[in-house]
């Protein structure tokens, strides 16, 4: 008896070649992007009203990162050191960490919800965190209180989104989850508006500028406020990155593969909420990054989250840092970076949406 075999289906050589490339060289891309982020950070230290050569900025940065006392006769003057240490470095670190966190959060959410059109701002976590933050501002709480309230708001919003989807018996249906996220996000945005309305004029002005998303006023304290949650949450997400592949197959399939779907999902929600809340607490709403960056990263290294998550993190850092450089150099009035991410993110996502739809996403 002849052995039955499956006939080869129609497979495009181009897509097979692309998969082969990403499978073989996928690790090189996040490493190269990591190096690009470091270079971009050094370059960003030179940008601003006070001109600073690249070499000098690099020397000062090396000195600040080096845990040894200052040389007796440093090649830089005190003014240059102050500009880098007090003004530019906190801002550069803040922008980079915010971008890294948003890139990772968006990728994790898209994988978890099996939908490439999801981002932290779409499932309500950003609005929830913003509401928590403005509430803390209304009561004039300390920065730690703002971050705690933003985290609480983000978690509550995510909990409400999943509970609403569960009520509609669609907690494993990504479209129902997104709709629930839109409803909950709208509610928290309205609540944020209410807080703005009842707040005194001086607080309202601060809240409005903060909500637009900006890195103005970056300092060491804010850097710690975003660095600890982003690095801790990001490291945890990195260890779970292969599990995101499994989660992206759907609940039943992931469960039969031996995954505790509920625990894994809530762990990811908690980590994403922590990262997004810390970003919102220090720099307000910076939308679209978590939606656009994972798409671009997927085009570079493919959908495997083992390579995708670090790529999206680096790309996110590069994207937000680059946009912040633009806002503080090209535009003299210092445009809030959240406005620029939305202005750039919207057409980019439209193009990506059109391109991916013309190729045909597989939907549930």
């Amino acid at each position, binding site marked *: 008896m002849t052995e039955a075999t499956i*006939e080869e289906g*129609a497979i495009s050589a181009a897509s097979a070649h692309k998969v082969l490339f990403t499978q073989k060289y996928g690790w090189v891309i996040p490493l190269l992007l990591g190096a690009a982020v470091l270079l971009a950070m050094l370059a960003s230290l030179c940008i601003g009203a006070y001109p600073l050569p690249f070499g000098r900025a690099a020397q000062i940065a090396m000195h600040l990162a080096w845990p040894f006392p200052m040389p007796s006769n440093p090649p830089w003057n005190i003014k240059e050191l102050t500009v880098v240490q007090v003004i530019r470095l906190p801002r550069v670190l803040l922008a980079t960490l915010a971008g890294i966190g948003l890139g990772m959060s968006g990728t994790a959410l898209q994988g978890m919800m099996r939908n490439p059109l999801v981002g932290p701002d779409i499932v309500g976590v950003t609005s929830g965190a913003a509401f928590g933050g403005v509430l803390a501002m209304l009561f004039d709480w300390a920065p730690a209180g703002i971050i705690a309230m933003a985290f609480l708001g983000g978690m509550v919003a995510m909990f409400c989104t999943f509970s609403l989807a569960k009520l509609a018996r669609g907690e494993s249906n990504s479209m129902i989850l997104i709709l629930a996220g839109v409803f909950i996000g709208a509610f928290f945005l309205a609540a944020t508006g209410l807080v703005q309305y009842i707040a005194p004029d001086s607080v309202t002005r601060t809240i409005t500028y903060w909500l637009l998303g900006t890195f103005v006023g970056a300092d060491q304290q804010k850097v710690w406020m975003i660095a600890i949650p982003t690095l801790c949450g990001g490291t945890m997400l990195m260890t779970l990155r292969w599990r995101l592949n499994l989660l992206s197959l759907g609940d039943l399939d992931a469960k039969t593969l031996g995954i505790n779907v509920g625990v894994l999902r809530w762990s990811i929600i908690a980590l994403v909420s922590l990262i997004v809340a810390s970003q919102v607490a220090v720099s307000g709403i910076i939308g679209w990054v978590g939606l656009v960056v994972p798409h671009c990263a997927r085009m570079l290294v493919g959908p495997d989250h083992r390579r995708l998550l670090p790529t999206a993190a680096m790309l996110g850092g590069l994207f937000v840092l680059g946009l912040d450089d633009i806002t503080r150099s090209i535009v003299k009035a210092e445009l809030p970076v959240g406005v620029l991410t939305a202005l750039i993110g919207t057409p980019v996502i439209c193009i990506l949406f059109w391109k991916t739809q013309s190729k045909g996403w597989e939907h549930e």
Partner: protein
Amino acid sequence: MNSNVVHFEDLGHAYRPSRWVFQNYNAQVKRGSTFALLGPNGCGKTTLLKIMLGALKPTKGTIKVEGRMAFVPQLFHVTFDYSVLDMVLMGRAKHVGVFSQPSAADEEAAMASLERFGIANLALRPFHELSGGQRQLVIFARALVSEAEILILDEPTSALDLKNQIVVLDWIARLSHQDGLTVLFTTHHPHHALAVADEVLLMLGEKAFACGQAGDVLTEENLHALYGVDLKLLPFEHNGLQHETLVPVLPHLDRKKRDFGEGYKSHA
């Protein structure tokens, strides 16, 4: 070691109170056997599979499943364009620590599994560009690499052409007889069950079922009761071996005369 890997007693499920999909079902699935579940649409085949997989709790009765399960769904869609190797590698989930990544040994196991099914050449191709039959084999390879003892398949041949249906049935028989896996599958084709299943459960109604050896259960009377149409059981010989198959009987059609009888005239 118990010879039954799945054992259910007085099993019943209702999605709404007192709206039973089925109840009072009893059956055992023997280790290393091939077990087919047959029934018309809506009789609860997939519900019964979900209960076995632990995705649904039975409304009443008890179910015991002994052994690691792997599930092959009816339609397999992936949102993201994973490569075939990535898909098979996911079968190693139980062997990879929660905070770890798959090792080179896991990748080798995934490649060996693909080779076993003769599709190692597809390893780096995008999964969503494969044909239905190729996808089914990839999911089989994933089940095998997971080192599951029980393979549960939901209508594995439903979306396949005839050739691929035979390939899949051939693999079901091989996985059971060569690898010692217990294979449990649902189907709408009684002749597929007759061809490969050792035992069969016919889901005849809410409380009515027939369970036993395929030859004893897949009778013309039982199948008439199940589907409400006539099927003829035909014995035949092939390569010196005795086989049986089922063919539908169209009551008004005389194939020799190519004449459509009275029953078809109203449609002319």
